[in-house]
């Protein structure tokens, strides 16, 4: 059951081959049995899930069911869910029950999706390995000694292990695409503003975007169809019409111009990963695409720019966690300052505190121009590079991450080495472009991701290119040992 596509599951549910309650029980059973070895869930909501499944079954019977009726999914624990703990992977919010649903949660619920639980993540989405979570690291289903990537590592691992049909994620610098690559699943980060940020706990507001992790581009399209769209509660939400992503999956590849930025294939890229990516682009050529080399000259600066912009925004976004209205509060504060300092030091982990400090520093008097303003200017140059490239090509492709999944603990003592994992994904966030990662030929049994970058609001094109590739290949169908 767990290997069927969302479209197949939806058809089965409508034909009563099985009920949503049965499907939901099946997933809950898999989670109970398999997740202890992965730690991909922070909360499992068995009872509410079964209640939602029952509701979906009734709606299906009554013919009033939404497009995702009865399909069991999971939400990254960064999305607020009323009545169900939203921790953001942090001790700070270990007991936080949001009094409202995120727009993304609300929309998927309205489409009939069943929420199995909330997935593990790097604390406040800050990390590329899922090791900064207060709830412990997630293990990669392909090799439990390795990381799943991050920050949406729980969602990626849960989808790869078939513990849910699909999962939501968020991507600030690669947090959907990099774990998708490392776990061998399909992940899409839409254009900035495509999905509402209301109720999605902010890390870096000008970069954060919600998206989907699924087993195929077709599944991702089914979910994104329901998530995307304008939201008046988010000032940065784009009021741009959303096409039907499922309907446009079968667009032809013939004549598609694909650009490979030379900067994405330089030093630091594992040669075997490069070979796998080249093999995939050859496949696309065989399908009729025209592949050519391009240049994004400022993209090597995306990591430095990101590590100014994202910490600056995060230092301010996380100032609200002060132990007064919600969240962790230290015992017996001596005075107000003690309340603030200890609540925050105890509630936040080391990486979050590092980033808050970097952000505080780059915004402080005397440094703003040299760091923050400079970074915002280079951000402009990076975005301009993409626009020049899109005059020549339709889709940009390259590796999602420089290596396959690395062992747990390998980079925890070296923040900079960790940051360089996102070297190929960050630029799209800085520019606000949509990006995707799809599985291609593995290296030593570990998944490799091909990254696809499109121009603004071209999610449909990315999904259709990925879908065409997946129709011609089988990499996305592979399941890790023990999770088939």
């Amino acid at each position: 059951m767990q290997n069927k596509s969302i479209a197949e599951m939806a058809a089965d549910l409508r034909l009563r081959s099985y009920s949503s309650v049965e499907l939901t029980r099946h997933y809950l059973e898999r989670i109970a049995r398999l997740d202890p070895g992965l730690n991909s869930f922070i909360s499992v909501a068995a009872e509410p899930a079964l209640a939602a499944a029952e509701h979906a079954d009734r709606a299906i019977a009554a013919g009033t069911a939404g497009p995702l009726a009865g399909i069991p999914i999971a939400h990254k624990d960064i999305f607020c869910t009323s009545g169900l703990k939203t921790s953001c992977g942090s001790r700070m919010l270990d007991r936080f029950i949001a009094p409202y649903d995120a727009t993304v949660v609300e929309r998927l619920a309205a489409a009939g999706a069943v929420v199995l639980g909330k997935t593990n993540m790097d604390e406040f989405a800050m990390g590329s390995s899922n090791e900064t979570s207060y709830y412990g690291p997630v293990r990669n289903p392909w090799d439990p000694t390795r990381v799943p990537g991050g920050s949406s590592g729980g969602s990626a691992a849960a989808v790869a292990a078939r513990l849910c049909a699909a999962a939501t994620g968020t991507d600030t610098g690669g947090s959907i695409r990099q774990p998708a690559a490392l776990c061998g699943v399909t992940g899409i980060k839409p254009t900035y503003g495509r999905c509402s940020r209301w109720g999605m706990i902010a890390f870096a507001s000008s970069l954060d975007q919600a998206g989907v992790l699924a087993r195929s581009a077709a599944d991702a399209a089914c979910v994104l169809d329901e998530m995307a769209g304008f939201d008046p509660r988010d000032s940065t939400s784009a009021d741009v019409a959303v096409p039907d992503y499922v309907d446009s999956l079968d667009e032809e590849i013939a004549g598609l111009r694909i650009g490979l930025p030379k900067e994405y294939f330089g030093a630091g890229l594992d040669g075997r990963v490069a070979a796998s990516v080249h093999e995939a682009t050859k496949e696309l050529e065989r399908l009729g695409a025209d592949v050519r080399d391009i240049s994004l000259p400022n993209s090597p600066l995306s990591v430095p720019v990101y590590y100014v912009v994202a910490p600056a925004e995060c230092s301010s976004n996380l100032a609200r966690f002060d132990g007064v209205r919600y969240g962790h509060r230290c015992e017996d504060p001596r005075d107000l300052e003690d309340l603030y300092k200890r609540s925050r030091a105890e509630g936040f982990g080391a990486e979050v505190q590092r980033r808050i400090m970097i952000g505080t520093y780059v915004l402080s008097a005397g440094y703003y121009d040299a760091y923050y303003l400079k970074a915002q200017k280079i951000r402009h140059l990076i975005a301009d590079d993409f626009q020049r490239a899109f005059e020549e090509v339709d889709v940009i492709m390259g590796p999602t991450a420089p290596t396959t999944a690395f062992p747990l603990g390998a980079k925890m003592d070296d923040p900079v080495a960790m940051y360089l994992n996102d070297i190929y994904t960050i630029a799209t966030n800085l520019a606000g472009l949509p990006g995707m990662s799809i599985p291609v030929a593995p290296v030593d049994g570990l998944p490799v991701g091909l990254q696809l970058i499109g121009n603004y609001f071209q999610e449909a094109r990315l999904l259709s290119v990925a879908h065409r590739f997946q129709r011609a290949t089988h990499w996305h169908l592979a399941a890790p040992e023990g999770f088939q």
Partner: protein
Amino acid sequence: MMQWETVIGLEIHTQLATRSKIFSGAPTAFGAEPNTQACAIDLGLPGVLPVLNAEAVRLAVRFGKAIGAEIARRSIFARKNYFYPDLPKGYQISQYELPIVGEGRVEIVLDDATVKSVGVTRAHLEEDAGKSLHDDKLGGGGYSGIDLNRAGTPLLEIVSEPDMRSPKEAVAYARKIHQLVRWIGISDGNMQEGSFRVDANVSVRPRGQTLFGTRTEIKNLNSFRFIERAIQFEVERQIDVIEGGGTVVQETRLYDPERDETRSMRSKEEANDYRYFPDPDLLPLELDVAFIVDAVADLPELPDARRERFHIQHGLGEYDASLLTGSRDLADYFEAVVAATGEPKLAANWVNGELAAALNRADVEIAQSPVSAAMLAGLIRRILDQTISGKLAKQVFEAMWAGAGDADQVIRAQGLRQITDSGQLEPMIEAIIAANPDQVSQYRAGKEKVFGFFVGQVMKESKGKANPRQVNEILKRKLAGDP
């Protein structure tokens, strides 16, 4: 002795008269139970986002036009980062580099009736913070309680140039802005409720020096009297410090009205580093011409223009014109009286005289006056047609104020109609002349002062109802011996 010059600039926070908050749909009404008007956005819960209130923008645009300022076609919201319990997000959303209202000017009228122009540097939109309440009983002692009802209330911060040179000028400027924001309907200006709060930047320098001295900032002055007293104290303190060989420290100070002094705010002593940066949750505010035109379409004639018009059209002096344009209601009242009587000077005398005094005594606004413009006009008409004398008119006014009806009703009820019938006056005057032969002789011998004695006698006899002009005329004739 060194001659010192005072330099003052004001930052005025005026609450904009919107129904809902600047970035949320929570109500702005004053006086609700703690935290019942603070929604998830105002509380800064995780995942919430701000969306800008159109009305706050419209009101800011009206203010900009009213001071002749450039309205920024593009302005930016920024975050001012600092930790304080009444600031839920750890930052205040404000405007920093690109405010919505640019440079403007207002004119203030000083005591000697000279007019001074004061520069407004800028005005920007921002959200208010909540309130800390100190109550020793809270939590068994040692705690403050935080009420966030006020958090997110829209404010317009109006920043002046350091153009004021005395506490009185500062007050005149503050009054001017207060008059203006109420005049154009963007704020209720209620100072008790904190809708109009003033921070004063004060420094002194030797007269003739062009460089500014080190300034201190006195926070949260919420009455015009406190503004004057606080600045006065602070100026004297600074001069004492400098003359005593010390230096003024740049700091934030608080005025204590009970002790009539300012003191340093210890909690704000550390150098602030607000780390301003553009708020990534809000996009650039871009205003098109249509929005601006629409916002100012119903802007009333402004106080300065109206003052000037009162001067030219109604022939009023600078002082009267300035008083009558103190508020829009007052100016409207005055013009309603003028329209009904055609007598601007008399109307001005009554509005600035009896009416102002009565309003002052009763501590009510013109809108609550028991004597309406129509009633005052009715009274003035009776003076003009000589039904009553000016002196009796004051009596009628008082009766009207006390609720005895309009002028005609009072005059009828109290029998105050002036005696203008010469058939009634002549015998009365003849009898008085006959009864006072000595005075008649004196008058006829050239002692003209005695004339006043006769007028007094007639007024006494007529209980003040005799028409003074007629009395004069008849007396002169009779004393001269004419029939």
